[in-house]
């Protein structure tokens, strides 16, 4: 079980927020969409449904807001925690397929971005091994890796279990 909104606020120093808006003003994403970092903190503190808002997923985790906050509110860390809670409560973002694909790829190959035959060819041409050395190089290691993932929540959330 993850943290509650209240615990997230406490750990992230959210109760120190003075609603100055320096976070939103710093946010490269909010300029292009409806994300208002300050508002997320306000909603969380007022007990509103912050985890249901889609803007929660517009944050690129660039940390600019956290860097600029004069009250040391850990805005970005909190957004990440709030997303965890959202996932737990079933509020996936709109394009919910993508993460599932990535998680599956991760499980099957150890890589979120798997190697395609084309790139494999390029690797050979530029003088690299056709396939990189990684967790999938050794079948035994990959099995172990999958065993590790079997015991983690992420495979459940990714729909693999």
């Amino acid at each position, binding site marked *: 079980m993850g943290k509650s909104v209240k615990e997230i606020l406490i750990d992230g120093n959210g109760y120190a927020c003075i609603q100055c808006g320096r976070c939103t003003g710093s946010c*490269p994403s909010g300029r292009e969409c409806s994300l208002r970092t300050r508002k997320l903190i306000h909603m969380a503190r007022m007990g509103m449904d912050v985890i249901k808002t889609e803007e929660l997923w*517009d944050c*690129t*985790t660039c940390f600019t807001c956290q860097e600029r906050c004069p009250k040391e509110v850990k805005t970005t860390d909190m957004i990440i925690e709030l997303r*965890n809670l959202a996932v737990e409560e079933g509020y996936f973002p709109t394009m919910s397929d993508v993460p599932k694909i990535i998680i599956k790829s991760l499980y099957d190959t150890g890589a979120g971005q798997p190697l395609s035959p084309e790139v494999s060819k390029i690797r050979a041409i530029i003088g*690299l091994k056709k396939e*990189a050395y*990684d967790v999938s190089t050794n079948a035994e290691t990959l099995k172990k890796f999958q065993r590790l993932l079997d015991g983690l929540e992420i495979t459940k959330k990714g729909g693999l279990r």
Partner: protein
Amino acid sequence: MEEYAFFPGCIAKNVYPGIEKATRIVFEKLGIGLRDYEYSCCPPPGVLACYDKPSWLVMGARNLSQSEKDGLNPMTVCSGCYGTLHNVWYALKNDPDLMGFVNDHLGRIDAEYKGKVHPIHFVDILKNYKEKIAELKEIDLGLNVAVHYGCHYLKPSSVTGENSERPTLLDELVGLAGCKAVPFKDGLTCCGAGGGVMSGEPDVSLKIINTKLNNMKDANVDAIVNICSFCHMQFDQSQKKLKTTEIPVLHLNQLFGLAFGIRPKHLALHTHLVSTRDLEKKLKDLKKGGE
């Protein structure tokens, strides 16, 4: 010999192998050893940390544990990988309970992470080799470039210890290759790829990068130089989609590769979506002129 565990990350090996290649060449020339390990994806903060932070911590710690018995610090060529591994290291170092939790899981596959090795970003190694790089330089590239630090190398500064508002390292490093870092509007903003936005909210992601690319274009740069495979992918792929700009994209190691006289093809520049042909031509002329 100074030696590191090489953590290439998914993109440098599976999408832009030119980055892996350039890294191996540059580090060999510098006389720095790189050892390979059975790594998995870092895993990325966007999709993994946001979906299940505990899983992200465990998988990150597994990666960190790989080279611990050899005492080698993992070196990353991607600020995303660096961000993940560094944040995992930082969180575990400061929270014994979390360390215990992670090791309970790792114990299931006979692994353990003690926190003895920590990730290091490749630019933090290169900054100690400025003289050697200058020595190895065969061509003064003479390019006007837009440098992109990538968010997770700089921030949060409480964790990275970097000067997040006024970094200067890349300006100095590209200078070693005879290039000039041209200031451009909002030079430090995010490329828009992280946090799962590139995959989850592609429209927003493209808008962010579009603004950024146009700012670079306004500064009349010859190339974008990055230190992060993920940003590299965003810069290269999004230009193909947006079709408003056409600025060649180079990972810093590719830039050094060129300066060291490596042929562009060996650095896989021809596989980039944004053509590097004009850039290569410029360099060829330069070389001719020089000889």
